[in-house]
Structures are given as C-alpha cells and as structure tokens.
C-alpha cells in the first residue's frame, strides 16, 4: 500500500488519542482555572472517539487480515484492535475514577490527563508495532508517561518515592530490553518481527548465542513490565505510593500492553524457538503466581494487597503465554484475560476510591469492616470484584482462568494447570477475606463516609456490568479474542513443523 493517507486511516484510533492528548494540553492553557473539570470530559471524549474508530475498523473487516503499514513497521490486525479496545477501556475507566480525585487532591489536571492519554497512546502503539525499534519507542512513551503519573502527587513523599523507584528500576530494565533488541539485530540483521522469524528458520539460528541472549534480555524487559517474579520488586511499593487512580489505570493497562507485546514478539519472531522459552515462562509463571498470592495474604493495606494480587494475575497470564503449543487458544486466553482483568481490577480500585479519603486515607483492610451494613451497593460491587478476582463462577474471572487452564491443558502443561488451581485456592483466602470483613464484621466506631461522585459510581457500575456480562455471555468477546489471536498465529509462522 502506497497511499499514506489511506495508511493513516488504519491508524485512526491511535491518531485520535494523540490529537486528544495534545488538545488536552492546549485546553489546559486556554481554559480558565475554574473550568478545568472539562479536561476529564475531554479525555473521556477522546478515548470514546478512539473506541468508535476501533469499532469502525472492526466493521470494515480489518480484523481478519493483517494490514502492514509504513513499510512493515506497523501492522493493523485483529490482535492490535482487540488490545486497543482493552487499553481504551482501561483509559475510560481510569479517566472516570480520576475526575473527583484530581480535583480533591489538587493535582495539575492538564498534565495528568495529557499523560494518561499519552500512556494509552504508547500502549496502542506497542500493540501495532511489528518491528522492535518501533516497539521500543512505544514502550518508552508508555513508561515515561506512567513514571511521571505515579509521581504527580508531588506533595506526598510516598508518591515522589514511588516515581523514583519506578523510574530507576524501569530505566534499568529497559536497558536490558534494548540490549536484547540490539543483540537480536546483531544476530539476524533485522528488527522486523516476521523477518526475524524467517531468518531464524532460513539461516538455522537455533543455537546462535547472540540471538538466544537477546531473546532472554527482551523477555526480561517485558517480564519487568508485567510484574513477573523475580522482576516484581517495584510493584507493591509503586502501587502503594502512586495516586490511587493512577494505580488503577496502570495496574490493568500497562500489564495488558506488556503482555500484548511480549506475546507478539515470542509468537511471531521466536515461535520456532518455543522449546527454549516455553519452559522458562513456565517457571516464571509458577513463581509469580505462588509468590504473588502468598505474599498478598500478609497484607493489611488494600492497595498493597491488590498490588500483590496483580503480580499473581501476571502469573496466570504468563501461564497462558507459556501454553504456546496450544496456538491461538493460548493467545486468545491471554487476550481474554487481559480484558477481564482490566474490568475487574479497575472496578476493585474504583471501590477503594469510593471508600478512600483525602490524602490516601481509609485504605486499610480494617476500613472495610461492616461496609455492607451501611453501603450495601458499594459492598455488593466490591464483593463481585473480589469473587471475580478469585476466579469463582459465575463471574468473568472464572471464565478467564478457565480459558487459561484450557490452553495449558491443550499444551500438555498439566503441572502448571494444577499449580494454577492451587494458587487460586490460596488467593481465595485474601480476596474473600475482604468480603468477610464487609459482611461479617461489625463496623468500627467511625463509619466510613463515602465519596459519592457520579463519575466514580459510573465506573463501578460499568466495571460490574462488564464483569457479569463477560462471565455470563462471553461468547461474543471470546470469539473476538480468538479471531484476534488467529491473526497472529496464522499470520506468523505455522504452529506445526517446528523443529
């Protein structure tokens, strides 16, 4: 395809978000102080418009066949469209939960929303990247935005410290990532994913140490972003220190983006080397879910508990990637889980925001005692999200986990499947403890007053409805995920015929 304008049309969702980000920055300067609240709406509008563009591309049957853009640096396929939808969902829910908080804590709203949009843009670009340099730049767009976002509450020492930890460790691990890319380039002479895959096959680079080390370092770089053990150290501290809505947004969005990119790289470029990376991911998945879940039990701060829980969920998704042999079933299960996790995790954080008070107050587990007595709706929402996170039917979390189990079994990873079930059993303890506290313990002396912002309620409601729909009528979303996965597995190297 030569016509640049036509190529740009395929990138409509990304462009809308980019324009939206710049527009928010401009509005921040132009608008008078008192109408800054409009920025949140502008952000949501941009994200919704982008979602409409995704829908438009889906309707135009782009989803089925991959469209290579700009000499193959980008690829518009069902995979990237599905992930775009997940990021936009994370962004919309993130913007909704931010509105009241940004006002109350006096954060600079212009920078806040612009950075949020840039982060979404980075995620979306990661999903369409078909080439490692583009991928790296998108990764950095995302990373730099969230580093700043996590430190944006400059008035609190915790926020600044979280930003610093995130930044230093993130830059450190992106050093590994980029070194890995350089080595892969050195081994194959190209940075395009499909060309790398072809080079591995045609030149028989199965034992090339440059390539293998490069692949390992790239894996490490992404493992850091998805919060896999032992690259997880930053997660609890950053999640706790960052402003709550930022934590909500990045816990789901960044993880989905990193998984999307990791899976695309491994499936497209290194499918023929799956015998090498599959066992490593297997072990990472095991460590991640066991450590995440066990450490979460010991937490008393709900943000920190959810941080460890997010580590555990990275483990489940890693198990889905490790089930490479199951092909599109494996990839589809990861995509579906990313969607489900976004809905239920941001939902849970939204409830934490509802209960929370100024300056990150009211975030201890004990603040949830007896919530059901005074605020049955909020408690019911939280109970739903906790049940979903713990993977019990009939919620979305159950299906997500079930699909990953299905993929793991198809790939003959029976041990990993059993470990996944065991790890979930552990997780039931701490998730349902929250339900326990809300329903079975007498409320404390000072009953929590809730923040009743309509935007927050809308976010909780949206997430709850999604969790229920994805649990009860998942067929549509599952089919989309499956088709999206197929564009990668079928568009890349064939699954059969590996050495």
């Amino acid at each position, binding site marked *: 395809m030569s016509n640049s304008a036509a190529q740009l049309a395929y990138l409509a969702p990304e462009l809308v978000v980019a324009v939206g980000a710049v527009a928010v920055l401009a509005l921040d300067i132009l608008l008078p102080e008192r109408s800054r609240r409009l920025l949140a709406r502008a952000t949501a509008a941009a994200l919704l418009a982008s979602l409409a563009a995704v829908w438009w591309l889906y309707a135009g049957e782009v989803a089925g066949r991959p469209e290579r853009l700009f000499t193959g640096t980008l690829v518009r396929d069902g995979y990237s469209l599905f992930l775009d939808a997940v990021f936009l969902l994370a962004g919309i829910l993130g913007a909704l939960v931010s509105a009241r908080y940004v006002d109350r804590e006096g954060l600079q709203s212009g920078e806040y929303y612009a950075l949020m949009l840039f982060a979404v843009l980075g995620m979306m670009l990661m999903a369409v990247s078909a080439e490692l340099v583009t991928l790296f730049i998108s990764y950095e767009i995302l990373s730099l935005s969230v580093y700043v976002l996590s430190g944006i509450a400059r008035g609190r020492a*915790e926020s600044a410290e979280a930003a*610093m930890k995130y930044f230093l460790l993130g830059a*450190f691990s992106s050093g590994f990532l*980029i070194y890995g890319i*350089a080595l892969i*380039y*050195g081994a194959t002479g190209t940075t395009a994913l499909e060309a790398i895959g072809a080079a591995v096959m045609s030149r028989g680079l199965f034992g090339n140490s440059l390539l293998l080390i490069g692949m390992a370092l790239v894996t490490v770089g992404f493992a850091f972003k998805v919060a896999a053990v032992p690259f997880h150290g930053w997660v609890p501290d950053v999640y*706790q220190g960052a402003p709550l809505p930022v934590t909500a947004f990045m816990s789901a969005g960044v993880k989905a983006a990193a998984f999307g990119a990791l899976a695309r790289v491994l499936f497209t470029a290194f499918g023929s080397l799956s015998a090498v990376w599959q066992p490593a991911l297997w072990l990472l998945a095991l460590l991640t879910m066991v450590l995440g879940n066990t450490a979460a039990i010991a937490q008393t701060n709900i943000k920190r508990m959810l941080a460890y829980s997010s580590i555990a969920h990275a483990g489940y998704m890693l198990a889905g990637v490790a089930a490479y042999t199951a092909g599109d079933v494996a990839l589809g299960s990861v995509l579906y889980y990313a969607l489900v996790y976004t809905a239920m995790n941001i939902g849970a954080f939204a409830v934490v925001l509802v209960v929370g008070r100024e300056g990150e107050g009211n975030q201890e587990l004990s603040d949830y005692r007896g919530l059901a007595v005074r605020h049955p709706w909020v408690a019911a929402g939280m109970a739903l999200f906790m049940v979903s996170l713990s993977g019990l039917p009939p919620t979305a979390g159950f299906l997500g986990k079930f699909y990953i189990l299905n993929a793991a079994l198809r790939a003959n990873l029976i041990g990993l499947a059993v470990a996944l079930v065991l790890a979930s059993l552990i997780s039931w303890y701490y998730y349902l403890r929250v339900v326990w506290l809300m329903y079975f313990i007498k409320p404390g002396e000072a009953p929590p007053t809730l923040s009743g912002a309509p935007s927050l309620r809308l976010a909780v409601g949206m997430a709850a409805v999604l969790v229920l729909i994805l649990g009860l009528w998942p067929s549509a979303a599952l089919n989309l995920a499956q088709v999206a996965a197929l564009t990668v597995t079928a568009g890349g190297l064939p699954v059969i015929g590996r050495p």
Partner: protein
Amino acid sequence: MVPTIAYVIVSAVLFTIGVAGVLLRRNALIVFMSIELMLNAVNLSLAGFARQFGSATGQVFILFVLAVAAAEVAVGLAIILAVFRHRDTVDVDNMNLMKW
C-alpha cells in the same frame, strides 16, 4: 579493520559496568548515570552491527535511543528533584517509606 566481535565485547563490558554501578552506588544521580552508561553500551554494539551489515537500521536505532535517553534525563532529573525536596537526600537506601 576491527572485527564486530570487538565491539560486542567492549559494549558488554560497558554494559556490565553500568549494571554494577546501578547495584553498588547509593546516590540516585550516579545510579541514573550508570543507567545512561548501559544505554550507551547498547549504542556502541548497534554501531558495530550496523557497520557489519552495512545497513542504516542500526544507526537510526542509535538516534532513537539517544532521543529516548534525553527524554529519560528530563523525567528522571525532575523526579529525583521532587524526592530531594521531601527528603533532603538522594541516597536510594533512604527511600523505604513503603515496604513489605
């Protein structure tokens, strides 16, 4: 002509020095400088590969890495400054408000 392997080795050594700096130094600024050293080690190996293949990809990549590094400096220094305002120190071993 210098063989490509020499570039690779020197860049690996530089990278390792950078990693060691991150692990051993306590001043956030020096940690940050060590990270920059890691990035430049990568640039060196990219230059070597680009020369070997005679392709522009590697050199373009270097430019992008430099640009990203510059952006990181801007963000990183701002963050370190923000921490300094609260704590009057940039010693990374003092940054443990949140743990466990």
